[in-house]
């Protein structure tokens, strides 16, 4: 019954649709929420959906993690290491950007007491 889901095209379609659903959740929060911390959370959710998309698209059924067990083995039937390395970079950069943004929000709240982005209009007048 479940052999249909083991085909690579079906797995990748499911991964794509699921990660885009998560991306939709983040984008909807980004467009409609007014609290600045909620906006940062939405951006983090969108980031996580893209990590899932990249890792899931390179997933191969019956392939191994790219780690050798002994020197005699060779790298056959192993997953591509490049998406993992790229996503490792992206996670670290996303974390740094998120922490910097949250620190800006904290400092802004201390100065003005505002968290709603509609009221952040000091530069206008």
């Amino acid at each position, binding site marked *: 019954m479940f052999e249909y889901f083991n085909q690579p095209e079906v797995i990748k379609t499911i991964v*794509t649709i699921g990660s885009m*659903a998560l991306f*939709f959740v983040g984008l909807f929060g980004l467009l*409609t929420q007014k609290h600045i911390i909620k906006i940062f959370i939405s951006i983090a959710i969108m980031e996580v959906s893209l990590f899932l998309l990249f890792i899931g698209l390179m997933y191969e059924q019956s392939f191994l993690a790219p780690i050798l067990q002994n020197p005699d083995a060779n790298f056959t039937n192993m997953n591509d*290491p490049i998406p*993992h*390395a790229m996503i*490792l970079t992206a996670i670290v950069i996303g974390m740094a950007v998120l922490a910097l943004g*949250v*620190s800006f929000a904290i400092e802004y709240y201390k100065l003005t007491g505002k968290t709603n982005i509609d009221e952040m209009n000091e530069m206008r007048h």
Partner: protein
Amino acid sequence: MSFKRDVPTSTMSGFALSAVLVLTFLNILLQNIPSKINTAGDALLQLNASQGVANAVTTVVVYFRGFDTLGEIAVLFIAALGIGLMLSKNKHCDIKAESNFMLQTASRLLFPIIMLFGIYVMVYGHLSPGGGFQGGVIVASAVLLLLISHKDFEVPHSVIVMLETFAGVSYVLIGLIGLLVLDKFLGNFLPNDISNMGLLMSGGIIPIIYIIVGIKVGSEMSIIVQNLLKRSENV
């Protein structure tokens, strides 16, 4: 009691706009689903054996993309610097709530274990899943446990500065030594024989660089966590 009156217009329009954008992405992505992707990864997996490192992801991060990792660490350093400039003028939290006895005792018990696990993940990054970034974040989580459980605990600033400077300078120095010896920035000038694969002392400079990355990430994450926990008196 109609649907349109209950839901605000901004919610409806935001829903519609994000649905259109996501469906566009989905349409583009679903048209190009390949069954098997032949990319540079297979070539890199063949090249990977020349460095004698068991974990191919570590080889890609530290050796083939070593210069990018140096830039990534620079980005992390700039973020930590910005957070420090923003928040470090506040006094250390005076109004932090007193943690209870169980958390204090358990944190004293758990801190060495989490620290040891973080250092293990850091040192064995070329043999098993893990590496400098993951191990550094685990070490920072141990520091966070101490920060939330002990009221008067503070990360010693001079130690952080020393560790961070040591890590950054030695990363660049190892790259420059590789440039002198092998005419290649971050060249692998230490013995990296394939027959040693799987041992702790294998892979030449790759485990050393990942430990350096771990030290840098751990100290920077600790200082970021400490700065974010600080509060000023007037809030």
